Every structure is written in structure tokens, then in C-alpha cells.
């Protein structure tokens, strides 16, 4: 059986671990996480299909190639800009860029 002092210590620890995060969440702090290491395969398939369409119907270029290509007759340049590139890990999502 834990002593009274041990119980208080354990209770304090539990408050720290469970209650404070809940209060923070209730107050609107950003605790909603995105698991960046887990890819949503459905969305990835959508992007892959888009790339397949673009490769066939339009000219995919890097942004640093855009000015050069834009002047070409009949060119329909498309830049796929992939933002917020960083190491894979669990992290809070960044604000829009």
C-alpha cells in the first residue's frame, strides 16, 4: 500500500501527465498532431494520378525553368511546388506557406 506521501507524489505526476495536456487542449492550444511519418495512400494515389496526367497533357518543369519555357510556342508549363520539405518525424504541422 503506498504511503500518503507516495500517493501525493504519484497523483501529482498523473496530474502533470494527464490533466495539464487536457487543460491545454481545452484552452485551444495546438495539441492536434499530424503523423507525418504515415502517408495517406489514397491522397498519394491522387497526386500520382495528377503527375501522370501532367506528364501526358502538359509540360512539367521546375520553377527555375519556367521563364525559359514560358516563351516557347504552345508550351503549357506546370510547376509542382512541394513546400515544407523536412525530415520525416512526428511533428506539429506548420502553418500554411
Amino acid at each position, binding site marked *: 500500500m503506498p504511503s500518503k506521501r507516495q*500517493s501525493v507524489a504519484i497523483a501529482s505526476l498523473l496530474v502533470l501527465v494527464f490533466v495539464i495536456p487536457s487543460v491545454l487542449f481545452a484552452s485551444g492550444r495546438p495539441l492536434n498532431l499530424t503523423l507525418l511519418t504515415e502517408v*495517406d495512400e489514397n491522397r498519394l494515389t491522387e497526386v500520382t494520378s495528377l503527375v501522370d496526367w501532367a506528364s501526358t497533357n502538359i509540360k512539367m518543369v521546375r*520553377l527555375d525553368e519556367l521563364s525559359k519555357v514560358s516563351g516557347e510556342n504552345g508550351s*503549357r508549363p506546370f510547376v509542382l*511546388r*512541394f*513546400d515544407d520539405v523536412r525530415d520525416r518525424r512526428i511533428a506539429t*504541422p506548420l502553418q500554411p506557406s
Partner: protein
Amino acid sequence: MTLRRKVRVTLAIIAGDLGTDPQLLNLVRNGVREGYFEIAIQGWLHEDFAALDETQITELVRNVKERLQGLFPEAAISTLIPPFEEADSKVMGAAAANGLRYVTGDLLHGKPYDWNGVRYLPKTVDAGIPGSRLGDPWTMDDQATIIREVERSVGTYGYAIASFHPQQLARTVNMPLVLMGMLIVGVIFLVSFFVLALRADKEGREA
């Protein structure tokens, strides 16, 4: 790790958040070497450039460029994508001071224009709705909608720039539910410990 498709893509890199994953580094390096990937600057830690003056932005962009050049020696870095797409005159000045040739932000900051040797090329297609605040899930439009927007942009501006984010391709964890579960478990533990402690105390006094 290999590329599923070899397509030309511009990667906006958060320099301070990249470099610890050797697999990812090698993937990007290979893409750069083969000419598919362009390395673009998107801040050290996605700073809000609106809160900085031109000197601070210039210094920051210089540091980021040096780091990215160190990580990707074969890359010709010429593009700045300011975080939050705040592409104002300070950002254009910082880009020019660092020898960059392109800045891309939002259409709100103007249609394509040239300024001191730097070309401004705004993004013209949003592939979804970003989280409105930190922690909100990001959405992604369906393929038909994005294609329609790309075609519209090409018709209007002669080109299309669409931005995607990893947050749009990642699974989200429902933290409110997780926290609620943690709270319930925590409360049960708390109550149990207090009951046990009080009972032990009472038994101790009675003994």
C-alpha cells in the same frame, strides 16, 4: 528508398529541419543530380518574414542558402519561397542581395513581375485548404478539381504553379480523442490511489 516517378519538382526546403535522415538526403541528392529536383529556400525554421526587416531576411536567407548548398553541393539554388508566401519588397531585396533569381509567393502579392534582376512568379493553384491554425487537418482537392485549376491558370497566366504540402499527404492523429482517453484513464488512476491511500491511512490509525 527510390523515386516512384521521375518528374520535375521544386522542393521548398526548411533548412534547419533537414539533414538528419540519410535516406531522405540521398533521395533528394539523386533527384538533384539527375535534374528532376530544384532546391528552393523556405527559411531556416519557417520563420515569418513579415516580422523581420530586410537586413534580417537577407542574413537569414544567406545562412539557409549556405546550409542547403552544403547539403546539396550539386544544386544551383536560385529560388526563394518565403514562408507564409509573404513576398513583399523586403523579400525581393533579400533575394536580390543573395543572388537569387526567382521568388514565388501568393497571387495577393501581384502577378509576375521583375525587380532588380529577380523574377516574381506567384503560385496560381492551391491544391487544398491548409489548416486554419496550428494543428488543424489539411485538406487536398480531388484530382479533377486540381486539373481544372491548372488548365484555368495556364489559360490565364500562361503557366501554372501548384503547391502541395506533406501535411496534405499525411495521416492525422485525432489528438482530442487520444487526450480524452488519457484523461479518463488518469482520473481512474487518481481516484484509485486516493481511495487506497485514505484506506491505508485509516487502517494505520486504527492499528
